[in-house]
C-alpha cells in the first residue's frame, strides 16, 4: 500500500482502519471519560490517525517476531539428545540486510506523517479568529483568564468549531495541561509561555488532569472542559463578565452567608467581584454555577462544599487553603451563599 496524498487508501487499509476505529470506539467515552481514543478535536483526531498507523506497523512487526520465534523454538530446532543440530550457520547477508532495511522502510512510513503532524499542530501564530485563553497553573488548581476579562477556575468553557489557542503559564512549578479527548498534553513551565492550539469539534464536557508530578496533591489537580455551542458559550461568557448574581431577598440563609463571607479570611485569597479582591485562590464570583470544586475532585453539592471548607487538607493534602472553623449555622449560611453565586 503506497500512500499518495492524504485522501487515497487501498481498500484493505481502509477496512483495517474502520475495524480498529470500531474496536477502539467500543471502549466508549462515556465509560472512560479521559480516553485518548475518542477524539473531539482536530488535534486529537490527527494524533489518533498517527497512533493507528504506528499501531498497525507495530502489530505487523510483532506478528513477524512472534511467528519467527515460534518457528525457531518449536519447528526449526531440535532438543538436546535428539539428532545433531541442523546447521551451525551464523551469518546470512541477505537476512541481515532484510531485517535492517525492512525496519528502515517502516520507520520512514511512520516518520513522514509524524513530522507533518508535528508542524501542523504547532502553528507559529494563532489561526485566524482564534480565541486566545490564558491558562495559569497553580499548585493544585487551574486558573482560566479570557481576553475579555472573564476569569474562572477549574472549569474551562470554549466554543465549538472555533480555533482555540491556550496560552499556558505557571504560577509556581512545572505542571502539564491535559484533556485527552481534545488532544495531547502540553507542559506548563515557569518562565516560559507554552501554547496549545486546536479546534474542538463536538459539544460536550471533557475531563482533564494535570500530567506532570507537581507535589502532594498532583492527583487532585483535575479540571473540566466544556465545549459549548456558540450561543451557549456567548451566554456563559456574558454571565462570567457580569458581577455576582444578586442574592434573592427570599434566600435568608444566603444573605446571612454573604455577611459571613465578607467577615471571613476567605477574602484574603478569593475574589468575588465587588466583594473581595484575593487572587491566591480561584475566583469564586460564579462558583455556584460550577459542576465541581477543589479542582475537579468533588461534585459541587452543599455537603461537599461544607466538607471542603471545614478541612481542605483531608481532601487535598498540602492544599494552601487553611481549614475554616465555623459553627454549623454559619457554615450552612456560607455554603448557601456560595451556591447561590450562579
Amino acid at each position: 500500500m503506497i500512500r499518495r496524498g492524504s485522501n487515497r487508501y487501498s481498500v484493505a487499509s481502509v477496512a483495517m482502519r474502520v475495524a480498529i476505529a470500531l474496536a477502539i470506539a467500543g471502549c466508549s467515552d462515556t465509560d472512560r471519560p479521559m480516553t485518548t481514543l475518542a477524539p473531539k478535536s482536530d488535534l486529537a483526531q490527527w494524533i489518533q490517525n498517527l497512533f493507528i498507523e504506528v499501531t498497525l506497523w507495530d502489530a505487523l512487526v510483532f506478528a513477524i517476531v512472534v511467528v519467527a520465534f515460534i518457528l525457531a523454538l518449536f519447528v526449526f530446532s531440535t532438543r538436546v539428545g535428539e539428532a545433531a543440530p541442523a546447521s551451525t550457520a551464523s551469518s546470512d547477508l541477505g537476512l541481515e540486510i532484510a531485517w535492517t532495511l525492512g525496519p528502515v522502510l517502516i520507520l520512514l512510513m511512520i516518520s513522514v506523517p509524524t513530522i507533518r503532524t508535528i508542524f501542523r499542530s504547532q502553528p507559529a501564530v494563532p489561526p485566524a479568529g482564534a480565541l486566545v485563553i490564558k491558562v495559569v497553573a497553580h499548585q493544585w488548581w487551574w486558573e482560566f483568564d479570557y481576553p475579555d476579562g472573564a476569569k474562572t477556575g477549574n472549569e474551562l468553557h470554549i466554543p465549538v468549531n472555533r480555533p482555540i489557542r491556550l496560552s499556558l503559564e505557571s504560577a509556581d512549578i512545572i505542571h502539564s495541561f491535559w484533556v485527552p479527548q481534545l488532544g495531547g498534553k502540553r507542559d506548563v513551565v515557569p518562565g516560559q509561555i507554552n501554547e496549545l492550539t486546536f479546534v474542538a469539534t463536538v459539544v460536550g464536557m471533557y475531563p482533564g488532569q494535570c500530567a506532570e508530578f507537581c507535589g502532594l496533591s498532583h492527583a487532585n489537580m483535575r479540571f473540566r472542559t466544556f465545549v459549548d455551542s456558540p450561543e451557549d458559550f456567548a451566554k456563559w461568557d456574558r454571565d462570567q463578565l457580569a458581577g455576582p448574581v444578586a442574592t434573592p431577598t427570599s434566600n435568608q440563609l444566603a444573605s446571612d452567608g454573604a455577611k459571613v463571607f465578607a467577615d471571613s479570611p476567605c477574602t484574603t485569597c478569593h475574589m468575588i467581584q465587588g466583594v473581595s479582591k484575593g487572587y491566591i485562590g480561584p475566583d469564586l464570583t460564579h462558583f455556584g454555577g460550577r459542576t465541581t470544586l477543589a479542582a475537579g475532585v468533588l461534585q459541587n453539592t452543599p455537603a461537599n462544599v461544607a466538607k471542603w471548607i471545614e478541612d481542605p487538607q483531608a481532601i487535598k493534602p498540602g492544599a494552601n487553603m487553611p481549614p475554616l472553623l465555623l459553627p454549623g449555622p454559619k457554615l450552612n449560611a456560607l455554603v448557601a451563599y456560595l451556591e447561590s453565586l450562579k
Partner: protein
Amino acid sequence: MAAQPKPLPVHQPSYLEGGGIVGWLTTIDHKRVAVMYLASALFFMAFGGIEAMAIRVQLWGPDNHALSAATYNAFFTMHGTTMIFLVVMPLLLGFLGNFLIPLQIGARDVAFPRLNALSFWLALIAGILLHLGWIRGGLPDAGWFGYANLTERYFTPGLAIDWWVIGLLVSGTSTVLTGLNFLTTIIAMRAPGMTYMRMPMFIWSLLVTSILILIAFPALTIGLIFLLFDRFFDTHFYIASAGATPILWQHLFWLFGHPEVYIMALPAFGIISEVVPTFSRKPLFGYPMMAYSICLIAFLSYGVWGHHMFATGMGPVADSAFAITSMLIAIPTGVKIFSWIATVWGGSLRMTTAFYFALGMVLEFTIGGLSGIMHASAPVDLQQTDSYFVVAHFHYVLFGGAMFAILSAFYYWWPKISGRMLGERIGKWHFWLTIVGFNLTFFPMHFLGMWGMPRRTYTYAADMGWTHLNRLETVGAFILGFAFLLFYINIFKSLISGERAPADPWDGRSLEWSTPSPPPAYNFATIPQIRGRDAWWILKYGRAGSRGVAAYMSGQAPSPPPSEPVSVEHIHMPAPSIFPLVLSLGVGMMGLGLIIDWYRIVIMGALVVVLSVIGMGFEYPDYGQESHDPEHAPSSGGIDVRKIGVWSFIGSECVFFASLISTFIVYKARSVSGPGPEILNIPLTSLSTFILLMSSLLMVLALAATQRGDKRWERIWLGGTVLFGLIFLCGQAYEFTSFVHEGMGLTTNLFSQSFFVLVGFHGAHVAIGVIWLSVLLVAAITGNLGKSRATSVELAGLYWHFVDVVWIIIFTLVYLMQAVPGA
C-alpha cells in the same frame, strides 16, 4: 589436538574461602567484590519490591486510603531510584560485570582492583544515604527524575531531597569509577589472541557501556551540583524569576538519563547473547553486526534525550529531530532481536530456566521496544507521556528486558559463582509465575494510559473506568512478588543444600567455564591462548565446529587424559587494602555532615578522604604488587593501564566541564539585574593564564628530568609547577574576593553564579592537581620518585595538562569572548 585445561596438584581454595570478616572488608578480589554487590542489590531489591507492592495496594481501588499522598509519593520515588541505581545497575555491572569480565577475557582481576572495591563501598554508602530519610527528614518524594523547580527548597523543604542529591552524587561517582575500571580492563587485559572481534558479546556490551557511563554521568553530576547549590547556597540555577529555567535540569538529566537506560539495556543484551548460543549449541548469529549494533545504539543514545521532553514546548524543529533519532535507534535494536531468534533457529536446544528467561526477555523487550516506537512519534507521545502507557513501556524494557536478562544470567552463572546449582523445578515455577505476574501487572497499563490515567497519582476517581484494570494489576503484582519470593528461596536453598556444580554444567562457549566452580582467587592456572570466538568451545572441540560437536553428541569424551599437573605458586595476586572502605566512610561522613549541618563531620570526612587517597597512592611502593599477570603483555599494545585509566577519567571530565561551560553560555546573558562580564579583569587574568600555561611547560620538563634520572632537576621542575599552580590559585582567590567587594557574590545573579561555579570547579581541579604534585614533590625530595616511577609523574602530567586545556577554553569563552558582541 585441542589443548585442555590441566588439573591442579591439590585442592585449590575457591575465592570464597578464607580471610574471615576482615578478609571481606579488605578484599579487592573482583569476585568477592561482585558477591558483595549481589548481597547489597538483593537487599535493596526487597525494599524496591515492597514499595511497588504498597503502590499497587493503594491503587487497588479509587479514593483509597491505604497510603497517604505523602507516603505514596515517597514510595514511587524510592521504587524508581532504588531499582535503577541500587538494583539493576549494581546487578549488571557490579555483580555480573565484575565477576565475569576477567574470567571471560582470560585475566586474573580487573585493571584497578582497589578502585573496584572502592566502587562497591561507595555504592553501599550511597544506598544507605538514599534511605536515611526513613530515620530522619523523610524519604525523597519528587520522583526518580526529580524535576526542578519542585525540588527547590521553597517547594520541597526538609531533608528528603538533600538525601536524594547526595546519595545520587555518591552513587554516580561509584559508577563512573566502575566504568573507568571496566574500560581499562577490557582494553588492556585480554588474553593473548583475543582480538576485539573474538571477545564474548557480554564483554562487547560492557566495553561500550563503560564508555556510555563515562560520558553520561557527568551531566547528571552537574545537574545535581546545581540543585545542591540552589538548595544549600541560595543560587538560582533552576528558578525562573531569576532568569533561569527549570528546563535546564531536564536537559542535563536526560542527557544522562537516556544513555542511562542503555547502560542498563546493553549489558542485558550482552547476557542474552551469551545464554542463547549456549543453550542452542550454536554460535551467536551475526556476531559482527551484533557488535556494531551495540556501538550504534550507544552512539545514537546521545541524540535522543529530547524525546523525554516532547511536551515541554521545544518547538517543531527540535521535536522532529528527536522523533527521527528516536526512531533510528530502533533499527540496531531490531537487528539484535532478529539475530537472537536466528541463533535459536536450527539449534539443538536445552530448555533450562536460564534459557527460558532469555527467551522471555526477547519477547517482552520486543513489546517494550514497539511501544517505544509509538513514543518516538512526538504527537502520539503527547497523549502517552506521563500516563500509564509510558509506565508500561519502561517496565517492559527495564523489567522485561534488563531484569529478565539478570534472572537468566543468574540461573546461568550461579553455578560458577557459588559452586552450586539452582533448583530447576523451582526455577521453572519462578519463571512461569514471573511471566504471568509481569504481564498481568504491566500489560493492562497500556490500556490505562490510552484511557487517560496519568502516572504518579496516589489515587484516582471511581467514574473514570480505571478501577478494574488497576485491580488486575494489583493481583499481578502480588503474583510477581510471590515469584520473587521463590527466587530468594531458590538462592537460599541452593546455598544450603544445592547440588554441587561442575566446572562446565552447560557445555559453555566462553572462558569462565574452563575454571572450577567456584573459581580460585587467581581465576586461571595458566592464561589460555585464544584462537577464535567462543574460545572455550574451540579449546574443547577444536575449530572443527560441528565435527567436534558431533563427537560430543555421539558420546565420545571430548577431552584426552591430561598430562602433567601445573604449578600455581608463581601467581601473585594483588594484596588486600582497607583504604576503599575507609575512603568510602569518609565520603559518607561528608555527605551526612552536609545534610544534617554538622560541619565538623564534613571536615573530618574530607580529611579521611584525602588521607585515604594519599594512603592508597603509597600503599604499594613498587608498582607490581598491585600488578596483574606478568605472563602476558597487555592487549593495549604496551600502554600502562594507569594511563588508560587517566585518559578515561579525562574523557568523563570533558563532559563535566562541557556541561558547566554550556550552562554558563546559556545563562550569562539572562541575568535579571546585576553585573555582567564587564566586571572581568582581562589583563590580570591573561597574566594568570600565562602562568598556568607556563606551569604545563614546567611539568613537561619535570617529566623529562624524571625519565632521564635527573633527580635535581626533577625536584626543581616539579617544585616550579607546584609554585606556578599556587600563583594561579592566588590570582583566582584575589579575583574572587575583588568581585565580592565590587558587589558580585555567588548568588548575585545568573552570570555570577554560573561564573563562580564554573571557574570555582576549575580552580578546585587545579587545587587537587597542586596537592597531587606536592605529594610527588615530597616523594622526589625524600628520594622515593625517580626514573623507575616516571609513570607516576606522567600520570600527574596528563591530568595537569588537561586542566590547563580546560582553562584555555574557559578563558576564551568566558573572558575573551565577552568583548565580542552577541557572544
